[in-house]
């Protein structure tokens, strides 16, 4: 696409599909609309067929399933014309008038079940667990039930979704045959079902041991334990298999389920010694340290903010807690609210930089964004000023001055400030480009002068305001006989 951009631009700019706009005040198309109305009204009377699908505004075709969920759900609250809000019905539902189905259908339903135990009867016994009236299982499931199927037959039946009792398989050998059969048919559903049975009836060590040589089944067990949240058994399994890194990651993952910051911190502390890979270990350590910091900063800043003593907090009230924010966001926060603090405090930017070994580039970029947002141009200046041993100052930016300019521009820096940094962009083309884009006239003019490019300078003269100081400047340069123009 890159290559054809010019062509494309040409097309869109030249035609922009103007031949066919659908504006109301387009005379030619008024008739078109009339015919549209005609067609629409015709359609109401005549056709009801499917090929001209009717569509509600939301685009859901009338009669589609997702459309109907809204329609029928809403009608259950207020029969005639309910709100279209999906499912808003649920709770304060007014039941419609009496039931419409006959008593006979009611009984028919019951007879089929072969049980008169109703849901309410069962639920009135307090224990939820005890309520498992398998009695209500349809008879069909028991049809052609036999108790002496081989493992192979059993698996076949399970594959077809039939009920099978696995309890008959008592010996380890039988159980393993069952598992091997399940694996052989590649049916994850059946494999998992057999695994649940084995998990219940075999000792952990034996199960793990047997799975070690049955990789497919093993992966299914891992997936199943993860799905069902059996963290402890999963960790045992990983330990048994000596998959230590997975133990570590799997445990670390748990922190996401802990909402309370202090508890999460304690949990992370417990993760530190786990057998992560070398880099991950360092990251987890940092994660803990960062959260620990954030908790301290948060407590402190909440206090400062509510006391109303700090100007920056008064002027820019915090929008969110700093807890659980990424490192770079935390650094930004600290550059914003705690920029001048001594290195000794936990919230000072320099302390963060040191503790987390934040690279120079990253640090400068973040500090720049924070100070620019506060319009603290003096701080911005100081960020890039270095003194050499003779005491001379020099401007230096590890991220390149073009990026400094972009950050400043995004924060609406005034032209005077912007100009200073545009001037420092080394690459001439980029400098000219930025200077023109952000109207830093002085920089443009000086650059053309240095390039001895009279033609460009003349052209630029037309772009600046009449009678402005920029125009004067250009004129005086153009009339300077010292310059040897290249054109």
């Amino acid at each position, binding site marked *: *696409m*890159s*290559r054809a951009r010019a062509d*494309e*631009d040409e097309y869109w700019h030249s035609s922009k*599909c103007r031949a*066919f706009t659908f504006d*109301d005040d387009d005379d*030619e198309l008024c008739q*078109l*609309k009339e*015919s549209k109305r005609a067609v629409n009204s015709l*359609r109401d009377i005549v056709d009801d067929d499917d090929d*001209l699908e009717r569509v509600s505004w*939301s*685009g859901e075709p009338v*009669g*589609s*399933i*997702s459309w109907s969920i809204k329609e*029928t*759900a809403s009608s259950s609250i207020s029969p005639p014309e309910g709100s279209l809000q999906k*499912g808003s*019905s*649920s*709770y304060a*539902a007014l039941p*419609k008038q009496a039931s*419409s189905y006959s008593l006979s*259908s009611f009984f028919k*339903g019951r007879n089929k*079940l072969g049980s008169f135990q*109703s*849901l*309410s009867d069962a639920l009135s016994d307090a224990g939820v667990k*005890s309520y*498992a009236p398998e009695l209500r299982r*349809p008879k069909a499931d028991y049809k052609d039930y036999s108790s002496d199927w081989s493992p192979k037959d059993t698996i076949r039946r*399970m594959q077809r*979704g039939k009920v099978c009792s696995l309890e008959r398989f008592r010996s380890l050998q039988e159980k393993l045959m069952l598992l091997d059969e399940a694996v052989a*048919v*590649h049916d*994850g*559903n059946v494999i*998992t*079902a057999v695994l*649940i049975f084995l998990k219940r009836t075999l000792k952990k060590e034996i199960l793990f041991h047997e799975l070690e040589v049955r990789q*497919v089944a093993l992966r299914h067990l891992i997936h199943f334990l993860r799905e*069902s949240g059996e963290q402890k058994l999963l960790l045992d399994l990983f330990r048994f298999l000596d998959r230590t890194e997975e133990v570590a*990651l799997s445990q*670390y993952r748990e922190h*996401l389920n802990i909402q309370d910051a202090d508890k999460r911190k304690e949990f992370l502390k417990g993760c530190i010694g786990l057998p992560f890979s070398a*880099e991950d270990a360092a*990251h*987890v350590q940092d*994660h803990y340290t960062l959260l620990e910091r954030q908790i301290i900063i948060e407590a402190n800043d909440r206090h400062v903010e509510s006391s109303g003593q700090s100007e920056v907090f008064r002027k820019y009230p915090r929008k969110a807690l700093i807890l659980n924010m*990424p*490192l770079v966001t935390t650094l930004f926060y600290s550059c914003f609210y705690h920029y001048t603090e001594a290195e000794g405090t936990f919230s000072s930017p320099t302390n963060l930089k040191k503790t987390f070994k934040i690279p120079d580039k*990253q640090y400068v970029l973040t500090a720049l964004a924070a100070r620019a947002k506060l319009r603290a141009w003096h701080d911005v200046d100081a960020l890039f000023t270095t003194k050499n041993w003779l005491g001379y100052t020099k401007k230096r930016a590890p991220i390149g001055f073009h*990026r400094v300019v972009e950050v400043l521009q995004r924060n609406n820096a005034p032209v005077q400030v912007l100009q200073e940094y545009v001037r420092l962009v080394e690459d001439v083309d980029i400098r000219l480009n930025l200077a023109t884009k952000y109207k830093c006239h002085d920089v443009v003019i000086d650059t053309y002068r240095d390039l001895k490019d009279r033609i460009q300078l003349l052209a630029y003269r037309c772009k600046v305001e009449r009678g402005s100081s920029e125009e004067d400047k250009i004129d005086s340069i153009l009339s300077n006989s010292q310059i040897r123009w290249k054109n």
Partner: protein
Amino acid sequence: MRSRGGRAGVTWPDLTALREAGRRELREFLDKCAGSKAIVWDEYLTGPFGLIAQYSLLKEHEVEKMFTLKPGRLPAADVKNIIFFVRPKLELMDIITENILSEDRGRSPQRDFHILFVPRRSLLCEQWLKDQGVLGSFIHKEQYSLDLIPFDGDLLSMESESAFKECYLESDQTSLYHAAKGLMTLQALYGTIPQIFGKGECARHVANMMIRMKREFPGSQNSIFPVFDTLLLLDRNVDLLTPLATQLTYEGLIDEIYGIQNTYVKLPPEKFAPKKQGEGGKDLPTEPKKLQLNSAEELYAEIRDKNFNAVGSVLSKKAKVISAAFEERHHAKTVGEIKQFVSQLPHMQAARSSLANHTSIAELIKDITTSEDFFDNLTVEQEFMSGIDTDKVNNYVEDCIAQKHPLIKILRLVCLQSVCNSGLKQKVLDHYKREIIQTYGYEHILTLNNLEKAGLLKPQTSGRNNYPTIRKTLRLWMDDVNEQNPNDISYVYSGYAPLSVRLAQLLARPGWRSIEEVLKMLPGPHFEERQQLPTGLQKKRQHGENRVTLVFFLGGVTYAEIAALRFLSQMEDGGTEYVIATTKLINGTSWIKSLMEKLEPAPF
């Protein structure tokens, strides 16, 4: 000769037979639950079901109410049966449990509960329900094997969103089992496929399962004349590169930017304000505009697979044609002529609104493709794919991280770089990882580990970069790409020819033997199997008749790849027509997302 599915005049082997079979199964289940019913939907399923049946079908079978599944109490509804339509997921079982336990105890008469698992019953879920003490409340527990859903005349999808993750990260082969099942169903309806080719571990598994299933159900030997000549099974991890690149076809871009779900797309409403007279016109709609996109729409069929840069000219040509057609009415003098004109109106009307919609969509997309950032991003992608500077830290990627662009965008680029370099140098990889977790949060260690396991982001272990050899042999990068009148599949990515489709193309001609070396560099085995046909069913090919190949992408396929295959089908001397099947329609974003650790608590 047959014309293609997905094109104007759809006469391609009717995938509707598949839809009919689906409807029949649905009706049979509904009739098992006698009396009035309400369906409680797992919301994810409504889209795929919508491609099989309309509400009217359900209504004919006494479905009076429909709700979405959510925690708490079930809505009141005076029906005899409550049926849950759900995927076999444990978190959904928890919601159902809550629904059932909070059912009004004094309620009379009682409502009967049923559960329909899609696409398969899960013994795990049933065990789960049993442990919660509610399994006994269900009278019918059944499965509805919605394996392959027809999305278009030439496209089938299982819409199994986690298939890639399960196959390649967790090595759970359940979705492969479903794929094999789906292929068996397909063969029952369209005849045994005589030739099977494949590349990759999962492809091998699926082929094995198919052969085994066939052996075990000898009755499945059918007497239908085979519609498909060849089945090509491809693992997604054979080509990890393609989905990471930004698709540049019209449909691909719509999907990249707005996301197409079950053939529907939701668009910002501003450009679609209804301009009816007498309707104030002031209050703009705030709800997104939802449109269905498929080849039944003539204009869309024409432009969906074009490079976006070629779409504008088609639209403006169409505009002229339609304007001219409406002009015709001035020349209609006699009653006969007027009648003639009026009879064409509905068609013209449809064409007009179709054009209006696509003009608006094209404008929306154009706003994005002409943005500086889109251009920069694309430039970097193209550099990586053509092999430039893949072995060092990329400035643009660093800038994006510094400006905190969406994480998925960063991950797509970094993974792309890794794949195009057969893994990153350890130092480069560590640098990216560090920047990512410091900027986006330490918890992303988990996501990075997942990407590494899936092979998308990894250190270069062998010390050798195979990508240049693969690129050159398979001609993955074409410098002279023609977007308007393409002569090669590389037009779909404006220069990059999708590896997966190249494999399909080379298989048809001259055959994989010519690329043995490269096939060995790509992961997993490649193989060929034959399924015997009774002599009566063997095809005697007429001269000039095209072969039909079914390409099955295990782990997902992008719209751009589909476009490339359709392009091959249409080549004058191609000789092969393609039908596409997949576990899921994906793009780089949805794909990476499926591999990310879920960092927020579940929506329920």
